[in-house]
């Protein structure tokens, strides 16, 4: 009897031990292979280690090159973790966190190729799933992919990934397009793998005519035209910053001016690239007309035209002899009756009252021989002064000029008070469309 009882007791103990061992084994399994919070200190096997990776760089695809205001195209990778500043042309560029601005056409998916830094190498080669998520307003954009990480890997690159949702179908921009990355090594569960941030501009259409998308033009136009979905909406909205006369060059934060130098002869920029490149950031009307036209072209709008105006195209000889007075002048004696009657001595009988302010400058020259403005959709804009739109040549003349001067005479003589009835009904200038 005694040996029998002892035998039964032994079986019971063994059974209890087996059950206990099984329970213990199941707990280990739960701890090791479940979905763990970040940093769970569970090691299933002392000899098995899984990969840990962090986002290192991003190369975007399907986007438009952003030109750093004549200092060159922003480089790839557009996001690179260790980069603190971007240097182009030997100079540091003012960018957020040293990362590059990105530009896409509206309604497109965002594509990129991510590269990861291996911070912990696995004990054996394994596949690590990667994913990213970004928010743009109410739109959630997701990317997925995988990388294979070996024990000797230091950096791994996934295939190009495309977002499952598209960018908004309107013009927009954000200072920080933030993408949060996750990684899942060998199905062990998702952990954070870093965050990337880039400025992102969304344009209405693909930039046209091979013109580079200068950073300043993108920034000014995308902020001004945010939420616009049509050509006409963009055309109207991008003029807002010019009307405010507060355009700032992005690469260095310097304000751009219209004839903003003393003396005037230091203002030499006559095109968008010249204005963006110039050290003194001061441009003539040609550069400001081009800034507006090039802002349209950044959004794929090509129907704008540059208009040259002067007293006479027919008798063009050099710069001619007749210049026009930019507002505001006062004719002190009874006005001339025709454009060719030079009846008022300049500065004495025809007095400068107040200068029309130009871009970031309240003191531009008071007369010119010729001038550039912009025509689009049957209206005129004068971006040098931020004035307009004007429905007709006459509207521009009456709002912008006060008469003519004969530059041959000494002293110089003026005439034809533009504001005096019936003179506003007479157009004094020739408007000529310049072929681009």
């Amino acid at each position, binding site marked *: 009897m005694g040996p029998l009882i002892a035998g039964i007791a032994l079986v019971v103990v063994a059974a209890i031990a087996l059950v206990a061992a099984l329970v213990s084994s199941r707990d280990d399994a739960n701890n090791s292979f479940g979905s763990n919070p970040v940093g769970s200190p569970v090691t299933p096997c002392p000899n098995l280690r899984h990969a840990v990776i962090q986002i290192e760089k991003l190369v975007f695809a399907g986007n438009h090159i952003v030109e750093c205001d004549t*200092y060159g195209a922003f480089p790839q990778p557009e996001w690179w973790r260790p980069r603190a500043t971007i240097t*182009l042309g*030997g100079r540091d560029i003012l960018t957020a966190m040293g990362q590059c601005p990105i530009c896409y056409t509206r309604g497109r998916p965002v594509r990129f190729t991510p590269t990861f830094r291996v911070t912990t190498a696995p004990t054996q080669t394994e596949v690590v799933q990667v994913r990213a998520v970004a928010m743009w307003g109410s739109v959630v954009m997701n990317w997925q992919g995988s990388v294979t990480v070996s024990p000797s890997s230091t950096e791994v690159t996934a295939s190009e990934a495309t977002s499952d949702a598209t960018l908004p179908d309107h013009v927009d921009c954000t200072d920080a397009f933030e993408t949060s990355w996750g990684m899942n090594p060998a199905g062990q569960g998702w952990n954070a793998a870093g965050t990337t941030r880039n400025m992102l501009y969304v344009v209405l259409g693909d930039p046209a005519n091979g013109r580079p998308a200068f950073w300043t033009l993108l920034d000014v136009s995308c902020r001004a035209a945010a939420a616009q979905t049509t050509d006409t909406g963009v055309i109207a909205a991008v003029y807002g910053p010019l009307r405010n006369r507060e355009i700032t060059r992005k690469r260095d934060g310097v304000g751009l001016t219209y004839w903003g130098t003393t003396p005037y002869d230091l203002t030499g920029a*006559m095109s968008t690239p010249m204005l963006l490149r110039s*050290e003194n950031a001061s441009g003539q009307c040609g550069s400001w007309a081009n800034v507006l036209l090039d802002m349209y072209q950044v959004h794929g709008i090509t129907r704008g035209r540059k208009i040259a105006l002067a007293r006479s*195209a027919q008798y063009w000889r050099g710069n001619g002899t007749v210049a026009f007075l930019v507002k505001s002048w006062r004719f002190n004696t009874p006005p001339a009756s025709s454009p060719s009657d030079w009846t008022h001595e300049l500065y004495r009988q025809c007095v400068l009252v107040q200068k029309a302010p130009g871009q970031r400058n309240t003191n531009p020259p008071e007369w010119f*021989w010729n001038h550039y403005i912009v025509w689009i959709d049957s209206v005129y804009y004068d971006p040098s002064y931020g004035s307009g739109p004007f429905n007709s040549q006459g509207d521009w003349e009456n709002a912008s000029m006060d008469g003519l001067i004969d*530059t041959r005479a000494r002293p110089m003589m003026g005439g034809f008070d533009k504001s005096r009835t019936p003179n506003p009904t007479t157009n004094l200038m020739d408007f000529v469309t*310049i072929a681009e």
Partner: protein
Amino acid sequence: MRIALVIGVCMLSSGGWAQTRVEDTKIAWITVQAADAAAVMAVRWLGGTGAPMLVASARREGRGGPMDSTLVFSSGPALRGEMLAAAQSLPSQPDWDVAVGASGAPVFVYTDAGGAVNALLLQDARDVLPVTTGKPFESFQRPRFVKHAAGRPLIAIQNEKSAIFFMTPGIEDGPYRTLLDCDTALALARVDRYDLLYKMEKAGPPRGNLLAPGSLHAVELDSEFRTLGMATEPLPGAVVYQYDADMADVGTVILATTAIGTMLKVGHVARTFTELLPQEMTSPSVLVARGRIYAAAIERAGTSSARIVMAELPL
């Protein structure tokens, strides 16, 4: 891969223009005594039958306020001798060139700013003639006379885009030809063709306020301005800001301000200058005359410490 790329570049640039050997010996600049070096905007050598003459341009403000401005050309001892004073439509820093006219007297071409459009004017001691009457409302910059050409043809850049060859400047509605898109251009006339040097703009900061960096190219044109062969780079890899050129028996002579200093290339040999401030040189001018090379430039133009420099070397 990198080696293959280098070999490829060497093969592409193996034309006569591009064979360059850089000698280490440097050329010393000599300071030109000038009455007011700070006011000088640009310099050019003027050849002719006499000794080479250095011509300088400056802007003089008048009594009529900030809009009253005159462009003054001077030469001679201390660059005091006034050759020409041209009233400007608007204050500007005009581009210009000078050559010997048919009468042996100097003739100038310069830009006249109108606010939007830069006209091109031809002026000698007797008259001022517009160059661009056939192209009203087109704006021109950087005019250069074609060197050694009969008559006084010139090239200027239209609307910051294309080089235009004016065959008979000063003749109303005279003929012209569009050559190519570039930033600046200069032609040297030979018996039956032209050597055309031109700069293509590159990305990067300017020298001074507005001088764009670029690469210098050269191509031959026949008498009808058709290109003969492929363009080459006379200064391969150099970031060029401004340049001038002339012809010598040993080949083309090029003086260029570059990112690494001023370079003089004679035939296939390039040499650099001893320069304290190689990043601040502008307005290079070169002339071949009397078996010698005359070079000049400005250091720190427009500043109170501006210096006009020259060098004279045997060919």
